């Protein structure tokens, strides 16, 4: 969706404040929101893409006017309401204190073992399809319609668009695609930069 979360290339936010004294959590409630979000993720009622999409659906004006952990709070409340797990008992028990370390250490990879042929090969020129889905997507607006070069093939991963919609993992290759700054921002760009973006097969077409 073309939401307020899709910030790449926007102007007007001012300089970055790299204040080294900034703590990871600015208030006690932020700690609890972080931990509740991580802990409830293990109930198996949603996945990371649904979770991201719940934050992205925040009213755009509100999203830009609120802090990071307010986005998380909004996302968690949305997921709880939509899954109805406050009314019906979840299939899995709550994460216990003595399970935390091993559970975090294990992680949950989005890499899949499915044998899927890649549609593109390193060195190939590709164009990002001009898709504007109203659901979740991980192709940022600033890169749609732009052309770049496949830098490397990361292998087969879950596809966020369908995973967030609850319609399956749609296993496919993810590539790091290299874009010249001028091909993204136009001939006036003077940065001498390149942007590498991880993109799935379904976002790309041959250039």
């Amino acid at each position: 969706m073309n939401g307020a979360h899709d910030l790449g290339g926007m102007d007007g936010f001012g300089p970055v404040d790299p204040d080294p004294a900034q703590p990871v959590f600015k208030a006690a409630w932020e700690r609890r929101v972080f931990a509740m979000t991580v802990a409830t993720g293990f109930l198996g009622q949603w996945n990371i893409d649904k979770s991201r999409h719940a934050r992205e659906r925040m009213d755009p004006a509100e999203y830009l006017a609120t802090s990071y952990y307010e986005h998380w709070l909004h996302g968690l409340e949305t997921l709880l309401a939509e899954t109805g797990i406050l009314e019906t008992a979840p299939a899995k028990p709550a994460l216990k204190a003595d399970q935390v370390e091993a559970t975090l250490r294990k992680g949950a990879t989005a890499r899949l073992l499915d044998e899927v042929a890649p549609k593109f090969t390193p060195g190939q020129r590709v164009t990002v399809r001009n898709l504007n889905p109203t659901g979740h997507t991980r192709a940022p607006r600033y890169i749609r319609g732009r052309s770049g070069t496949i830098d490397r093939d990361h292998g087969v991963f879950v596809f966020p668009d369908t995973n967030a919609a609850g319609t399956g993992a749609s296993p496919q290759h993810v590539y790091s695609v290299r874009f010249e700054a001028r091909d993204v921002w136009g001939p006036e760009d003077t940065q001498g930069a390149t942007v590498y973006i991880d993109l799935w097969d379904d976002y790309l077409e041959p250039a």
Partner: protein
Amino acid sequence: MPGDHGHDHSDVPSDLALRVKALESLLVEKGLVDPAALDVLIDTYETKVGPRNGAKVVARAWSDPAYKARLLSQAGKAIAEFGFTGRQGEDMIAVENTDTTHNMVVCTLCSCYPWPVLGLPPVWYKAAPYRARAVRDPRGVLKDFGVTLPKSTEIRVWDSTAELRYLVLPQRPAGTDGLSEDELANLVTRDSMIGTGLAKTPGQGGAP
């Protein structure tokens, strides 16, 4: 309005704190979270897992060419040699800074960050100014961090849109021959592993 003013003198409205407290009470009552598990989760990322992990990885890569080769070809496995594995670091990529290339990591869509090696992201990494400008004006962003690189240096910005997490391998500073891995790790800042800073030189003061 003194009546609205709680004991918390931060800029956070107290109704937010109350809303979170109410939510936690409800989740505990419904058996969906164990408050003791929340405490462990918070403690893990506030005191145990942080950029000192990544600094050890970088210091070894500076000291041991074979390790550096492993890190750049199979970052996840190389980092796992230290036991730094798991959530938000399941699939890792390390990118190397050189005399001609400087790497910088951003997540324009949310806040993707390699937790096992760097901990939770700093506030600026998650906020709009960095997410908006890193891909468009990376030299300007670096300037905000006090870093100016030669015009000839190619800046590579990595927008972490997928479930790959990026660690920047900063350049080893000059004048560090003969330093031990522990001494080298002290020169590796968090920001140098995101790519918004450079590693410290010996004797240089504290930096994030």
